[in-house]
């Protein structure tokens, strides 16, 4: 197993953690539990979104950084093959992934500011909007990365 494969696996694991954190936060802002939760879904909804703000920022930066490192190998070893196979929509989806990831990176400072403690009640909608944006970006990037890896994973 080469270094890129190891980094890709770590990138994927960090992405799973990020996906969980930002999804928990998104659910907590859009469908908060009003009473003590008994069910699994209820407990998902009842988590305090505040506790995920710092984690989302750190995980996003780490996932982004590792993605940026392995991107060079992807460009040579994977994209070339995807183009030769004529998989244009998959290639386009990955292009969107890289651009969405960059846009999300630029939002992190303002996202972090509005999720810091103590939360300002008047900015609840702002927080919800930023969390939704990041959740969309993270889900898109996770799914596209997974699909591209299934087409031609590193080391294949």
């Amino acid at each position, binding site marked *: 197993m080469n270094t890129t494969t190891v980094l890709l696996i770590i990138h994927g694991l960090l992405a799973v953690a990020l996906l969980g954190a930002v999804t928990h936060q998104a659910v907590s802002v859009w469908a908060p539990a009003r009473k003590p939760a008994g069910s699994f879904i209820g407990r998902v909804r009842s988590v305090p979104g505040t506790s995920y703000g710092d984690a989302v920022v750190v995980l996003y930066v780490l996932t982004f950084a590792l993605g940026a490192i392995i991107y*060079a190998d992807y460009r*040579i070893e994977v994209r070339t093959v995807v183009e030769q196979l004529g998989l*244009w*929509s998959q290639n386009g989806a990955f292009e969107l992934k890289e651009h969405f990831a960059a846009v999300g990176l*630029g*939002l992190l*400072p*303002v996202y972090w*500011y509005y999720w810091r403690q103590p939360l300002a009640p008047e900015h609840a909608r*702002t927080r919800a909007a930023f969390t939704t944006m990041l959740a969309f970006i993270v889900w898109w990037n996770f799914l596209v990365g997974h699909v591209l890896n299934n087409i031609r994973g590193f080391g294949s």
Partner: protein
Amino acid sequence: MTPSSRFPVFAIVFGIVFAVVYVISVDRNYALFTYHPAINAFGAGVQEGKDGPAMYWYGWLATSGIIAFVAGALASFLPGSLTRRLWAGWAWVVAVIVMAAFAWLLRNYFLR
């Protein structure tokens, strides 16, 4: 950690400018530098590929990051009377518009 009272202005302006400059950088290819992955080398500005493809993404990020940082820093020193009404939502509204712009710019990948 308690951020400075100037930080929200910096963060909002940074988010807006980063997204706008990034999409312009991609569309016009204003990469600060080029990376040549086949030979593991960097070159200043926009260059043709050497022994393989050229990668501009890192250069677009650098262009956008530097300009957004400078814009955010300058905005944070504006008087409070000018920045008080700056709506934080512009950061995500602009980001949504920029993401839609990318979907439009890349539409040919999905329409072949």
